[in-house]
């Protein structure tokens, strides 16, 4: 926005986090939290991060629900693999996926989604070719995984940002 509030959303978020941590809405805590939030916001301004522009913010809860459902399903799937294939499944392999998403903030979201889902880990992103190298614990059908990453997550993130 300007030099004092380079990241107003971040500062507001920090204030909310501070108040939750203190479990109090007393004026003293609001003032202290605001000082910390403004200071930290100004400090991150020096990092020159690109602020994400959410074109369709109403799709964020949709993405959240989709990801939560997938995390539940993959928790069950990985737990089952550990129980049934004690020494490790023979289907674990690397998989390279071509991406359309180039926005750094979008890539951060995608990396968090992929890595917090059990069974998939983001290993490497090639900026020139814009491909993503993943390690996946149980690959039965490669195309199915590519469709999941691109169709379920990347498409939604592209829509939210574009």
């Amino acid at each position: 926005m300007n030099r004092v509030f380079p990241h107003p959303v971040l500062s507001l978020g920090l204030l909310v986090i501070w108040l939750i941590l203190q479990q109090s809405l007393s004026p003293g805590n609001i003032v202290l939290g605001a000082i910390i939030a403004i200071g930290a916001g100004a400090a991150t301004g020096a990092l020159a991060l690109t602020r994400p522009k959410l074109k369709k913010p109403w799709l964020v809860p949709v993405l959240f629900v989709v990801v939560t459902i997938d995390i539940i399903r993959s928790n069950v799937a990985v737990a089952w693999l550990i129980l049934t294939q004690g020494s490790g499944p023979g289907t674990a392999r690397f998989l390279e996926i071509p991406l359309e998403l180039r926005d750094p903030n979008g890539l951060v979201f995608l990396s968090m989604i992929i890595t917090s889902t059990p069974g998939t880990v983001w290993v490497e992103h090639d900026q020139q070719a814009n491909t993503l190298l993943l390690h996946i614990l149980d690959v039965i059908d490669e195309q199915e995984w590519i469709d999941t990453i691109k169709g379920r997550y990347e498409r939604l993130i592209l829509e939210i940002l574009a």
Partner: protein
Amino acid sequence: MSELPLWAAVPVAMLVVAGGLLTLLGCIGLVRFQSFYARIHAPTLGTSFGMIFVSLASIIYFSVTGMRFASHELLLIVFVTITTPATLMLLARAALHRDRAEGRSDVPLPRSMRQNEDT
């Protein structure tokens, strides 16, 4: 701290046991899987729903006994979720770097070093 009523004790107990079991399974997988890359998947059970179940149990327990909404755990869920990927990616990339430096054939080479492939 006041007594925990039965209607709250049952879900708290179930959530703690479920979260504990998931985390335990993740640890068993970490020990028993054979390759490094398979191993890093296992502990994510503990850092996803293992952690969420225990946190939910904690929210219910302290909200009921303390008679006010306990919200610290929500921050815990958020921060564990956004910080775990950083560690996991760092570990995976370090392992990949090491395996490539040692010239192992079971890891993919960087894209720039395999231009003759049709990928």
